[in-house]
């Protein structure tokens, strides 16, 4: 609970921080300007800052150019294409948000009737919640919007159990590996480091075997089973990552808690976990991403009704034609939550990935 509250607080701080950034920038500008005018600050300095910032911006934009290019095609009102004969184009042709609207579809919250029986009487209070019509796709000429919302829901239904299960497997293991000495500890650690990457490319032949097993057990086309699979693949890397992070937490906190009379599990819950926040956030994002972006296994195991977003994305592509505008719009919409999450979790992820325990 307090964890949630602290997350909320951090979020608030981030928002405030983000909101005051322009203000700070303005203050700096004013201060520098005043300094330059009075001759205290040589004009080279702000110029150098501006130049370097600009350089960085150019570098970042160059890196992101493919994304921008996708965006152009997503905003194109003419179906878009990544093959454009008409030369390098930096603005979309006949710009239109239609592809995005097609992706999102209607956003209509239907009105519900809520009846509240009043105790000891026969009467019922009836409320009608107002219906919200945020976006009606047909207003924009989109007749049959994509299945994005359904896929999104499916993806959530896969990703959430993946994260929950993954965390349940990873956190205790990471703790034990970081703080306890037991038989095989080093072997397991070593194995985990080895296995962090091996496996991804085992190939599709594997998949058939895997699928057959799933069918045998009767859990194919089951989102939960897929989650279990994802959680399993996420185990080695993330366990190792979290363990490394936990290594960086000073033992004295634990000792203080032990001397304070806390039993082991409370030490973990009250001290280790809150202090591993950054590591947990990183692991959280990585396990989430596992389930969110994986395509091949999901496509093999899931039936049409259970398609997750990546599979849904690829069901847009038919043998010969790619509807680029919609395809791109779909992909970008799909990636946007991750971007947002990262924007806010950035500090933690950068902290969580710092391999605190790795001494050089």
């Amino acid at each position, binding site marked *: 609970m307090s964890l949630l509250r*602290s997350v909320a607080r951090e979020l608030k701080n981030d928002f405030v921080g983000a909101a005051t950034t322009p203000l700070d920038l303005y203050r700096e500008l004013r201060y520098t300007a005043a300094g330059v005018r009075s001759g205290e600050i040589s004009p080279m300095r702000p110029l150098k800052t501006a130049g370097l910032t600009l350089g960085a911006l150019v570098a970042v934009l160059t890196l992101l150019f493919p994304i921008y290019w996708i965006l152009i095609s997503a905003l194109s009102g003419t179906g878009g294409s990544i093959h454009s004969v008409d030369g390098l184009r930096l603005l979309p042709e006949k710009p239109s948000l239609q592809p995005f609207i097609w992706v999102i579809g209607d956003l209509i919250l239907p009105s519900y009737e809520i009846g509240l029986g009043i105790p000891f009487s026969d009467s019922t209070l009836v409320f009608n919640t107002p219906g919200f019509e945020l976006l009606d796709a047909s207003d924009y000429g989109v007749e049959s919007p994509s299945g994005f919302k359904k896929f999104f829901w499916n993806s959530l239904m896969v990703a959430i159990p993946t994260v929950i299960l993954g965390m349940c497997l990873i956190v205790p293991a990471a703790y034990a590996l970081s703080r306890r000495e037991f038989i095989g500890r080093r072997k397991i650690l070593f194995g985990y480091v080895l296995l962090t990457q091996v496996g991804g490319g085992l190939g599709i032949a594997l998949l058939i075997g895997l699928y057959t097993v799933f069918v045998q057990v009767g859990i194919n086309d089951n989102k939960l089973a897929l989650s279990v699979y994802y959680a399993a693949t996420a185990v080695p890397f993330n366990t190792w990552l979290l363990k490394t992070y936990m290594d960086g937490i*000073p033992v*004295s*906190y634990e*000792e*203080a*808690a*032990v*001397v*304070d*009379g*806390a*039993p082991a599990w*409370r030490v973990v819950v*009250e*001290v280790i976990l*809150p*202090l591993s*926040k950054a590591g947990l956030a990183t692991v959280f994002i990585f396990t989430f991403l596992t389930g969110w972006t994986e395509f091949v296994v999901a496509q093999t195991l899931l039936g049409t009704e259970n398609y997750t977003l990546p599979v849904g994305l690829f069901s847009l592509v038919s043998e010969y034609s790619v509807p680029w505008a919609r395809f791109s719009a779909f992909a970008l919409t799909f990636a946007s939550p991750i971007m947002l999450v990262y924007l806010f979790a950035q500090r933690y992820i950068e902290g969580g990935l710092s391999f605190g325990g790795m001494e050089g």
Partner: protein
Amino acid sequence: MATVTLDHLRKEYDNGQIVAVDDVSLTVEDGEFVTVVGPSGCGKSTTLRMIAGLERPTDGRIYVGNDDVTGVHARKRDVAMVFQNYALYPHKTVEQNMAFGLRMSTDLSKDERRETVRETAEMMGIEDLLDQKPDELSGGQKQRVALGRAIVRDPDVFLFDEPLSNLDAKLRTTMRTEIQRLQNELGTTSVYVTHDQEEAMTMGDRIVILNGGELQQSGVPKEVYNDPANEFVGGFIGSPSMNFLTVTVEESGGTTRLVGEDGFEYGLTDERLRNAVRGREQVRLGIRPEDVRVAEPGLDAVETTVEVIEPVGSDNYLHLALGEDSIARVASDVEPDTGETIHVSFDPSDLHLFDASDGESLLYEAERSATPTV
């Protein structure tokens, strides 16, 4: 409240390759404040951690009160520990930090806990900080909170592991007084580890000196100061350090003379001293800086040159060309020039004599047989 008894405690690390604590026996009386001092790596922390239950002794036993707690888990011992880096939980507020121990080790209700914490916080003068996080506190405030966290639990024993070493000089003196005041008020048995001999001297009812894992001496600070059991203790306690000279004993007829390298000569008249050196070829002579007096040339006076003069405001330290580096602490108005030749003398009762090979005090032995310490 309870006595703490360490009985031939030994702790080995790395399968016996490192002996951190070697056969230490000690009794801390109920309500006593014992300071443990020694150079870095001498085993102070290890000893303390064994009392806390954070390390398991390789050998020997630990008693709190009448209970043998050697095998008892740290969380079941009713001790509170203050760590060098405070070890305040950074994600909890001051109040939560202080209440944590109560939550874990007592059945108090939430309100009772809050009440208790509030009382202690008032006592420590940190009631305004209760809602803050440790990050937002200054060093001194953190230290107070760390103390408060220990006090609030009202434990049998307080353990302090260099709690002041991260504070700056001024703050350290303030907090020192504060801790003493608290201990007087609460009267809880306390073991206080420090590497600062001044802290150890001023704070402890009794002072325990460790070196290389072994107990060197334990006693009332003043006694230890005046009558160190060996050269190590003599040199370690007191600032500036005791001056040491290796001297040859020359007995001729009824007089005994101690002869040093740089033309140092000192005649022993005191019978006790003469007895102590009798039959020895070499001894180590120890004399505290404040016992070195600048004197007129004369029979007992030793001639030497001033190498450096160091003013510390209240006094001046004269570095003399005697032995390796001898210091005389003189009043701040005694200001010889560098290189000046002066004469110094010392009172026979201020002299310390140590065995030249093993450093044991030649005077302490005699005395100890009469009045055993601990």
